[in-house]
């Protein structure tokens, strides 16, 4: 299994103080470079020596990446904003309490004071076969060790697995997808805005990455539009240990309810696929319907329609079905 070393491998450390300096470094070193933000994902990799970047670019000193500010009818959150800042920010709580709730369910208080929003959405999967250094598909190999008949895959994917069955571990990701957030991605070539839904990618697109980020890209901010500000929203996470673990499953919902009828909805589940999965079929089915048991049953049924359980994760079917039902019922409670 992964070997814990007293010392990390050697690398060149750069600590740029300006955004352009960081982008230049990323362009210069390309795939040899590793972006260090809160360090909570990074140091696992480096200490286990499962990844050995030649260059580490620590973006912690770049002021432009920090802060939360009101922008138009929405808000702009710097990628380096700490999760705890999001949890306690009055504007976030007033407009998007679901995001604050999701950030508040990430790991432990210590980690939330160190971890950043950018890091939470950019972190790699927690599949232990992959993180222990097995040469699996995600590591560039030819095999998924988590999909063997006797593999330990209780935490793995229920949907959209394509050779690799790892899941996205992010809690804030589903909330951002449900809120129609836009990810601001910069490189020396310019700035592009990527819808959160497209920011995360599955193994059928690229089996070695979880986001669209190229080696020369840097996630600089997350823009949340005003569309869902003050709307009925809900976030729930289920984990083995509520105070610490990654999600076995989570759900984020945003509902536009008018006169007791769902006008428009966003339903996103996490921890069950390699990316936060927007359930469009459920969204379309519940639009125009009242929130009652019949609607909830239909939503729950549709939510797990394409589920493909592995040897030890079939419980996630019932979990996902119930999470989706609750996400609709409780959003307006």
């Amino acid at each position, binding site marked *: *299994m*992964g*070997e814990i070393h007293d010392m990390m491998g050697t690398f060149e450390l750069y600590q740029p103080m300006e955004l352009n300096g960081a982008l230049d470094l990323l362009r210069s070193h390309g795939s040899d470079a590793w972006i260090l933000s809160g360090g909570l994902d990074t140091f696992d990799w480096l200490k286990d020596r499962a990844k050995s970047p030649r260059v580490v670019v620590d973006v912690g000193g770049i002021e432009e990446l920090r802060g939360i500010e009101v922008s138009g009818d929405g808000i702009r959150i710097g990628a380096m904003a700490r999760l705890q800042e999001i949890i306690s920010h009055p504007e976030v709580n007033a407009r998007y309490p679901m995001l604050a709730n999701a950030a508040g369910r990430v790991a432990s208080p210590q980690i939330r004071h160190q971890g950043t929003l950018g890091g939470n959405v950019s972190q790699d999967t927690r599949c232990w076969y992959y993180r*222990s*250094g*097995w*040469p699996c598909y995600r*590591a*560039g*190999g*030819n*095999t*998924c060790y988590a*999909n*063997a*008949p006797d593999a330990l895959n209780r935490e793995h994917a229920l949907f959209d697995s*394509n*050779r690799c069955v790892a899941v996205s571990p992010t809690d804030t990701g589903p909330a951002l997808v449900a809120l129609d957030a836009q990810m601001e991605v910069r490189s020396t070539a310019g700035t592009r805005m990527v819808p959160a839904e497209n920011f995360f*990618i*599955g193994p*059928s*697109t*690229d089996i070695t*990455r979880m986001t*669209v980020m*190229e080696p020369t890209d840097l996630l600089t901010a997350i823009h949340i539009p005003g569309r869902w500000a003050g709307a009925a929203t809900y976030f729930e996470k289920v984990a083995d240990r509520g105070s610490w673990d990654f999600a076995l499953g989570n759900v984020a919902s945003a509902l536009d309810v008018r006169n007791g009828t769902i006008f428009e909805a966003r339903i996103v589940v996490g921890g069950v696929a390699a990316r936060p999965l927007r359930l469009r079929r459920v969204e379309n089915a519940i639009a125009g319907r009242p929130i009652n048991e019949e609607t909830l049953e239909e939503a729950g049924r549709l939510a797990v329609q394409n589920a493909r359980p592995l040897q030890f994760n079939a419980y996630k079917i019932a979990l996902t079905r119930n999470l989706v039902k609750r996400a609709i019922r409780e959003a307006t409670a």
Partner: protein
Amino acid sequence: MDFVRIATNPWGEAVLLGLAWEVLWLVVVAGAVFVVVHGIFKSKSGRPRLPEVGAASGVPEKVVRHNLSARLSHWMLAAATFTLLITAFVPILGLQFPWVTVHWIAGLVFGAYVVYHTIDTIGRKSLASMWAGVQETVESIGRAKEFFRHGGDPDERTPKWAFENKAFHQVVALAGLAVLGTGLLMCLRIDTYFWVANPYVFGLSDSTWGLVYLLHGFAAVGFVGLLIAHIYFAIRPDNLWITRSIFKGWITRDEFLQHHDPAQWNVSENGNRVLAADQAEAAVGAGPGAGHHGAE
């Protein structure tokens, strides 16, 4: 430069993963060098001396070289091959898109064609017509040596398929069977519309799978080189007469007589029914008996 990808598992064991993708660039560069060197050589050696065409040959104005079935097969195979190469290599070059489903579907089309082509060829008992045997290879090497010493033989006319065609076809067949066989094995490990993925099919070890992926990658990269050569020769001005045929199906009487030996390619047995009108016209024009050594 690495030729293979090897990883180390947590037990410290080396695991073969497959071909190193730098080899792709090696093949592309080698292909480009071949094209440049061959192009320069051909331009220095001047236009080929073509034999004089006989006046009354009885051959129709248009000789079918690729009938409709052959043309459709060629372009279907071309589409499948391009799709396979694009979906295989473009993501490796950095442009990411959901390629897996398109890749295996194109692979099955490719495989279906190979099966059809094999059965069809056996059915027509023409398996040997594309086989470049040892004797023919030796003779061809001798002719090549002669060509480089003294220039080409203007009177050298070939059967329908010249040695170069046969040799190329043989290499393509070899690469095609390798990529197809390994591809089908790999296909069993992914979900398709026809079966559910079995990642541990046949219980092959990681190292054996590494060999399968290595062979698949090697054959696929080989196809890139073969494609470079194929397209280069297709667009060379001295070959446009035959390239036209893969679009329109025919070559002219003069082209036939300049490049082919009627004794070795009897066009009357070539299924020229498509051009029946031409044949009738030729037969009328040439008078009674013309059809015996013309195209029927």
